């Protein structure tokens, strides 16, 4: 382990390092693969209020440089979270981030209030899951619906509130600003890109649900672009997410303006990747002689004519 200071600030929170898992790609099952307290934070799979079965199988398929998933949000509901999950995660030092989602504003608001419990460090509002509504629809596709849902959630909690955005929008900056204006303390850029794959022999989609969310290295340039756009246009911190697998990927997002990053699909290829990234980032900081990550966050030099 290196001695470099990897801590980063996300509004009122301070993380020991900027590496955390992406929602839906992490669970207690990883605890006996490496020490989860090495992570900057723990972000849980999105929960919904009631119990849900999730989507039909196949729920995943692989692609060149990435994968599609249509897990849906199989959920054991709020009670299971309170009685089983929360106590388990309270056993760690790393701050706990609870991801929530809902179909309606009322349900979303209610769930937000219900998970605002001691031991929860922040709430990530998954307003961008393409696998809940038909055709991948989600609140974060439009500024007005983003504003509305964030306003409702903000009213229900005093915890730091993160808005997880979607790349499936033509207005990422307006959406990000709507989230900030309505109380988001940080942005996560981004959830999966809506995609599809067909098995040409059966003529059926390769996912049981038809369409699904694309993740992995293939979406990295899109997520990086959104991270840059949002960091430039907003004052709240941005957490980069999409295709991060190597130290260079982490640095790319930090340089683009991310204050921290989430790692998803890469954990499926190598379950210990996040532990390695923390160690490698420390080594890199020492080798570069950098005292703080703030020296590189947002340090991209854009060409003339582009507002950096």
């Amino acid at each position, binding site marked *: 382990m290196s001695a470099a200071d990897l801590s980063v600030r996300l509004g009122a929170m301070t993380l020991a390092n900027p590496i955390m898992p992406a929602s839906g790609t992490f669970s207690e099952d990883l605890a006996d693969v490496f020490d989860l307290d090495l992570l900057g934070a723990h972000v849980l799979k999105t929960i919904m209020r009631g119990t849900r079965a999730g989507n039909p*199988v196949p729920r*995943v398929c692989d692609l060149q440089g990435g994968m599609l998933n249509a897990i849906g949000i199989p959920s054991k509901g709020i009670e299971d979270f309170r009685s089983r999950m929360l106590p388990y995660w309270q056993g760690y030092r790393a701050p706990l981030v609870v991801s929530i989602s809902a179909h309606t504003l009322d349900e979303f608001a209610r769930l937000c209030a219900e998970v605002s419990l001691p031991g929860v460090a922040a709430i990530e509002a998954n307003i961008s899951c393409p696998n809940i509504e038909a055709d991948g629809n989600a609140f974060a596709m439009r500024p007005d619906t983003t504003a509305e849902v964030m306003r409702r959630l903000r009213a229900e909690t005093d915890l730091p509130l993160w808005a997880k955005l979607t790349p499936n929008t033509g207005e990422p900056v307006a959406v990000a600003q709507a989230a900030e204006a309505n109380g988001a303390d940080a942005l996560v850029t981004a959830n999966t890109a809506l995609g599809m794959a067909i098995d040409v022999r059966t003529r059926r989609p390769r996912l049981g649900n038809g369409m699904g969310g694309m993740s992995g290295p293939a979406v990295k340039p899109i997520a990086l672009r959104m991270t840059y756009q949002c960091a430039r246009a907003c004052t709240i911190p941005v957490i980069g997410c999409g295709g991060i697998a190597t130290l260079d990927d982490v640095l790319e997002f930090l340089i683009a303006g991310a204050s921290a990053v989430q790692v998803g699909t890469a954990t*499926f290829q190598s379950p210990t990747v996040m532990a390695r990234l923390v160690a490698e980032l420390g080594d890199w900081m020492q080798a570069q002689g950098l005292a703080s990550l703030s020296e590189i966050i947002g340090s991209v030099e854009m060409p003339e004519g582009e507002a950096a």
Partner: protein
Amino acid sequence: MTLSPSVLSVPMAPGVLPRCAEARCVVRSNLPVNGEYRLLTLDAPPEVLDCQPGQFFQLLCPEPEGEHPFLRRPMSIYGYDAEAGQLQFLYKVAGAGTRGLATLRPGGMLNVLGPLGQGFSMPQHWQDLLLVARGVGLATLAPLARAAQRSGRRLTAICSARRPELAMSVDLFRGYGAEVIVVHDEDGSSTPEALRGLIEARIAAGRVDAFYTCGSSRLLRLLQDLGQRHGIPGEIAMEQQMACGLGMCQACVRPFREEGGIVQRRVCREGPVFPLLEAIA
């Protein structure tokens, strides 16, 4: 340059032993065993060789020309030998991932993650075991047969196939002291009806304490029916599309019968071996 097998080590929480590990193995051989199957033998580090029959690994398959398998591919452990430092997989070349495996040459590297999942259980009172295998299910049952022999069980293996060309599996199960019965589609001996008679005769003779099987829905239904009628327990190894292999992503669920009703379980974590009667064909 000689490469040696190694494990990616990472810090664990105090007192926690890693359940599985990511290892770089060296290919010892990768030989065709008949038209469709290949046997891959790896030199593996000790950290991944504390295996149970029925468990599996997730293999990071090399890319064959023009194809790009991205996710790891699940493969049952066909053989493991901690002393010899060896790990074996028997695989059928099906798509991009297994075509990639087929490109491996001796001396090459393969990244494996495992051992994963829950293997077969073999309680003391299950002394007379009936294995019913078809297709690549053989790969999954082979280490079970070996363990059964070591703990002195009686073993019968019904090997089912399209055509009567099962030399490899027959020899293998015989080698583990099993009585082997070959059934196949061409003479109709592999139909559920034919198998039912055959198995019921053995049950009547008091020769079946437990069933073990994998894969095929037809076999599952037959054994469930026989199990229920005659009060015989058993286990089945199941398959499902996977992403993480560790229980995190919920890709690999299948429905199971429980007292309260139907529940979804993860093949990679609660399985791949499940109680026969709880499985849904």
